[in-house]
């Protein structure tokens, strides 16, 4: 049992190379691009301006769009996410799921694989006799 972090190298890191490649491409593009000097905010107060912009109030010193509608929508989204998280996570007292029994996350295959193989064995007695032990091991 390792007692300290252990660097797990292996072939699973291979796909990470794609991320590195992406970085290489992005870095090349960014470094060869040229931008003008930044305008900056000229010493104006940033945080109060954000508050004004978010609630469509006048008084912000820095130009900005108005975000009241977006703010309300985000409100609703958070609420929905909360409800969804609760729904997904909830459990009844006896351990059964509520409300999502009908959601199948198994690709439509029989949920209980052991019972399915049992019926197979029943319909094919010869096969069962030949490779019973293998089947048990596979299942």
């Amino acid at each position, binding site marked *: 049992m390792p007692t300290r972090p252990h660097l797990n190298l292996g072939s699973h890191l291979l796909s990470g190379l*794609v991320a590195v490649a992406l970085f290489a*491409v992005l870095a090349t593009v960014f470094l060869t691009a040229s931008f003008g000097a930044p305008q900056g905010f000229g010493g104006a107060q940033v945080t109060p301006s954000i508050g004004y912009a978010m609630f469509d109030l006048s008084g912000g010193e820095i130009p900005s769009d108005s975000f009241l509608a977006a703010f309300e929508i985000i409100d609703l989204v958070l609420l929905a996410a909360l409800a969804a998280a609760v729904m997904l996570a909830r459990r009844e007292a006896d351990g059964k799921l509520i409300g999502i029994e009908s959601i199948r996350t198994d690709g439509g295959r029989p949920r209980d694989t052991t019972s399915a193989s049992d019926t197979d064995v029943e319909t094919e007695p010869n096969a069962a006799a030949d490779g019973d032990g293998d089947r048990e091991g596979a299942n």
Partner: protein
Amino acid sequence: MAATSTAFAFEVAPAIAILPLASFVIALFAGKYLPKGGALAGIAATGGSLLLSLWIALTVAGGATYNEEIYSLVTTPNSFDLHFGLLLDPLSALMLVIVSLVSFLVHLFSLGYMNDEGERGLPRYYAGLGLFSFSMLAFVFADNLFMSFVFFELVGLCSWLLIGHWYREEAPPSAAKKAFLVTRFGDYFFLVGVVAIFATFGTTLFAGPESFPTLAEEALAGAGGGEAGGGAGELSTFGFGPGTWFTVLGFLVLGGVIGKSAQFPLHTWLPDAMEGPTPVSALIHAATMVAAGVYLVARMYGFYALSPTALAVIAFVGGFTALFAASMAVVKRDIKQVLAYSTISQYGYMMLGLGAGGYVAAVFHLMTHAFFKALLFLGAGAVIIAMHHRQDMWEMGGLKEKLPVTYYAFLAGSLALAGIFPFAGFWSKDEILYEALIHGLNDPLLLGGYLMGLTAIVFTGFYTFRMVLLTFHGEPRTHTARNPHSLGWSVKVPLVVLGVLATVIGLINMTPVAEATGLHIEYLHTWLEHGIPGLTVEHYDEVLETVAGYSAASLSPLLPAVLSLALALAGAGLAWALYSGPDPDHHTERLGDIRTLLMNNYYQDEYQVWIAETFGTGVARLSDRFDQSIVDGAVNGISEVSLLSGDRIRRIQTGIVSNYATLLTLGLVVLLLSVGLAGGWFL
């Protein structure tokens, strides 16, 4: 006033064809609820067509013509359009009258032949007749080759339906299939010809300055004028000289004509087609299906006149067919078989006439033949009714006293067929032979056609009178012949009408008399002289002379006329000498092996079946292999590849989120790199 009535007549002209179509629909869907199984609708419709056709003919006689598009199917801006249109000129007006008259009389006769005999499937029968009349009438007034082809094929379909009317028996369905397949074989060439004419001229119009005969003529004139890129420069002749190419086109269309008009070697379907009801035979032989081929050549005669090779072949094939078929008719026992071979023979004469430059003569014979052959078939139908559907002439005999109306009508038709003065067939056949002779004196191929046509006259006279004598004269040879079934008015009326026509219709174009007396009594000639420019007799004669190089020897028509009459009388006299007794012998037995050969139709069927089996099966097997391996192989291969690649490619979908993320990132990197490289971000 006159102008408006003319315009109105042409306005309603499509109804000539539409009326039988309506009777087809009525008979098909309501026939079993109507009295007579829809016959009355058919009679009314064809009667209406006849009246309208007469009106059109009168209008055309007043000098008016009509050449209009009425319904456009497909229009492409720069190449060509497919449309239905009306071409009403003296030729089509004449043919409309013939077709609608014969069709009307056949409907009438069918009352006696089908209804009174208690046949089943009458609505189907009358629907077939209606569709048949519709197709033929529409074919006749078609203003372009495409429309002609469409209705040509419809005519073939209707013949299949009607020949196979008694489909529960063994022979009729087989005969119907044979008729359909053999004519279809010719129609393949016709179809290729239509497409080739489209490709060459960009139009298939028959008449007008933009029509393909006119364009072809201009092209030839341009080429003949020494200008390399003259008139022919506008037309693509696919690397051939314009003259050669037009001959090829003519031959392609001629394939359909030979199939439909039962010319050698595609004549074998026609005798078998006798399995159909006799009125249908009358309709097929006199006015509709078989006539369609000859009519087509006459319709585009301006085109054929440009090609002396095609004309000579037409003439030679026609002459050969005339003799060939007439020889087979000599030994037949079945009255309808004799008539069938006589039809082939007579259409051979028409082809000979057309090929020999006798446009008027051929149209004249087409008309007289329509009447006397319809008469003969309806007469044969009357005999068959009387004989309780026995058709063997050796079981008949002595019907003259029992069936006087039928006898005299049939006799008139027979005299016309044999070409005995002054019945219709004499004038028309004689004129054809005269044209063949005067042009043939300068052309050995035409002369050969003429000689064969001349020989065929003897045979025609012989088999015609053998038929008449065996059927009507002598002592009755069976019980049925002693007690024939009586005939109703619906049988007799058409016979009388056609009998009168067969007797007198020849008088409209008495060329020998006109030549001898100097009177202007060649009414048909005059009739075909006016009309749309480029579709007149004068124009055809001029083209024949200038382009095809036909020259007529100056010869009095009297001598050839006397010669052919003498030959016809010789044939008839031979038949009289052999079969006129009260109980004639089976003289054809004496022919021995020749009789066997003739009875077996020169083994034409056998060799065609052999060809079909040897080559057809081989080609079919090859096609099958092509279909199975290449066509199906390509289709199966595509599906196989899709299945296989789908099966492989789906392995990308591992279901592991990390892999998807990797792929997404990889895609983003590639996209950034490519966009960046293209946009110069890395400079």
